[in-house]
């Protein structure tokens, strides 16, 4: 019996018991859909993290005040700031591996233009900030070193802020109020796109660090939340970290044996940490998905055993007219594989749909790769073969006379 005919016979048999076939497929459908959705979300998250890391700039190093403890990286400032603008200046002057560096002083607040108001973060930085972050201006100009020196009240708007306050109208040259202080807009940044976990990188305003410090924070110290440095090449990350550490230890007069009062993190560390978390999550979910596939497979096995019993006379008759054991084996095996395979295809669509919904609801990119679709299809077929084999083998071993006599 040819494979094509066997396939047709299998399809007929499945269509004959539509409801039963669909219910049996359900286990596989859910299992495969779960696998597809989970892989899609996992891969989407990975790509997103990579993009976000890339959007931080070329080979970025982030220097935080306060000592690093467990885990190797930490976000946000320590309780007491130990890094200063002068530290940043010393790094670019003394460390040959660093291409550009900027201090970052963070503030936040209400931004008002005429009758519109909006809230966003304000970053006080050096003019080299855009170079460090690999970011371009869309309109206007950057502030200069002399703006920094005299703490001029000028600012650049991120794309989101520009849109919210000016709604596509010309903003350069206008004056906005940040925490009730007038700032002149001198430029607008290019859109960078939103980053991880819904954080919008374009919802920002940048201004000279001196202005943020003195005008907004009314501080006379030059303490910073972090220093962002861009290293000349990825190979230089390690030497740069060592060198910066040496420079900062010397500047902070830390004697040998005392802990660093700052921590230096490079993007690979962040990537690794996040990737290992997301890998763990994916693994966990794949285990759950596999369990549901096994349950689906057992469902197939169960229904195939029922089907073999119900069709004992048919098997006997087929044997009487010349079917060999292997013809019968193939017939039922193909039936199980078709059941699982069709379930797999439906599961792929359902998983794809679920991934889209997750993506739309969470603003979280989702990647359905052809690899994962292929994997799902192969996986469901393997489930069909594995769980369909025993019932099919039982059918093939039937004695034709007893099968024909079966009531």
């Amino acid at each position, binding site marked *: 019996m040819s494979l094509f005919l066997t396939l047709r016979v299998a399809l007929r048999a499945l269509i004959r018991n539509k409801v039963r076939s669909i219910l049996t497929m359900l286990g596989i459908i859910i299992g495969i859909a779960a696998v597809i959705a989970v892989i899609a979300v996992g891969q989407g998250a990975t790509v997103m993290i990579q993009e976000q890391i890339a959007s931080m700039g070329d080979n970025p190093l982030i220097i935080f005040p306060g000592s690093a403890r467990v885990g190797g990286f930490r976000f946000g400032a320590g309780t007491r700031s130990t890094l200063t603008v002068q530290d940043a200046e010393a790094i670019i002057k003394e460390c040959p591996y660093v291409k550009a560096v900027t201090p970052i002083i963070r503030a936040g607040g209400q931004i008002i233009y005429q009758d519109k108001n909006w809230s966003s973060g304000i970053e006080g930085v050096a003019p080299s900030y855009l170079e460090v972050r690999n970011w371009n201006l869309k309109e206007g100009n950057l502030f200069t070193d002399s703006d920094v020196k005299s703490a001029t009240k000028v600012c650049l708007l991120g794309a989101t802020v520009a849109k919210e306050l000016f709604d596509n109208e010309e903003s350069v040259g206008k004056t906005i109020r940040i925490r009730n202080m007038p700032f002149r807009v001198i430029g607008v940044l290019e859109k960078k796109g939103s980053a991880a976990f819904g954080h919008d990188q374009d919802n920002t305003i940048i201004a000279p660090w001196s202005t943020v410090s003195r005008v907004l924070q009314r501080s006379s110290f030059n303490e910073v939340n972090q220093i962002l440095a861009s290293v000349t090449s990825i190979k230089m990350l390690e030497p740069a970290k060592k060198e910066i550490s040496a420079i900062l230890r010397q500047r902070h007069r830390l004697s040998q044996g005392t802990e660093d009062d700052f921590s230096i993190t490079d993007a690979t560390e962040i990537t690794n940490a996040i990737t290992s978390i997301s890998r763990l999550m994916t693994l966990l979910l794949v285990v759950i998905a596999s369990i549901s596939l096994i349950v689906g497979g057992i469902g197939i096995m169960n229904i195939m055993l029922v089907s073999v019993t119900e069709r004992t006379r048919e098997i006997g*008759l087929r044997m*009487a*007219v*010349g079917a060999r054991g*292997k013809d019968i084996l193939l017939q039922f095996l193909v039936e199980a594989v078709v059941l699982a395979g069709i379930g797999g295809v439906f599961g792929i669509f359902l998983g794809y749909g679920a991934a889209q919904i997750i993506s739309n609801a969470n603003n979280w990119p989702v990647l359905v790769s052809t690899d994962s679709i292929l994997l799902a299809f192969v996986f469901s077929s393997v489930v069909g073969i594995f769980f369909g084999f025993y019932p099919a083998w039982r059918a093939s071993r039937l004695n*034709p006379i007893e099968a024909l006599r079966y009531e």
Partner: protein
Amino acid sequence: MLITLNQITKVYQIGEVDIPALRGVTFTIDRGEFVAIMGASGSGKTTLMNILGCLDQPTSGQYSLDDTEITRLNRNELAYIRNKKIGFVFQNFNLLPRTSALENVELPLFYGNRLSSRQKYQRAIEMLTRLGLADRLEHYPSQLSGGQQQRVAIARALINQPSIILADEPTGNVDSKTGQEIMKLFQQLNQEEITIILITHEKDIADYARRLIHIKDGEIV
């Protein structure tokens, strides 16, 4: 000789108990014969027919069919012989339910056959037409009368041009008029050189055959 049976015995075992169904059956059947095997219920007719039809192996004895020693063959070789040389007609028709008459007739062609599906289809149509069922091709068995169902089963038995038709009480489930029609059909087929072995316990059915073999308690009498 087409069929030579020599001292065929068959013993069924149910637990510890041995049930002898055939006790040394010996006879020959020539090509083109029309034989009726007669006997009371439980005399071993079906057991004999299963052995003749290569569905079962005897406990002892020799069975040669077309110069092939059947008792030495394995399951697959027996399946091949059933497919090529034997057509079965059962008392209860044994048609596949919810499957058209046409597909029921095509069934033997699925196994060990190199015909294209077009050729299979053509042959099944021809066979059903010959048996007067040209207007019932797409009917399911449940939509056919007993006589029509048995004719579909006969078409299925004939589709692979077998040398032997084995019929186990083919008229047992139809009314007497239909039974006579079926027997006339067998006579007609016999005229086309097909060997027919018929099992029955009814005298007037057996009368259609040209030779009678009586069996009693597993022995030829």
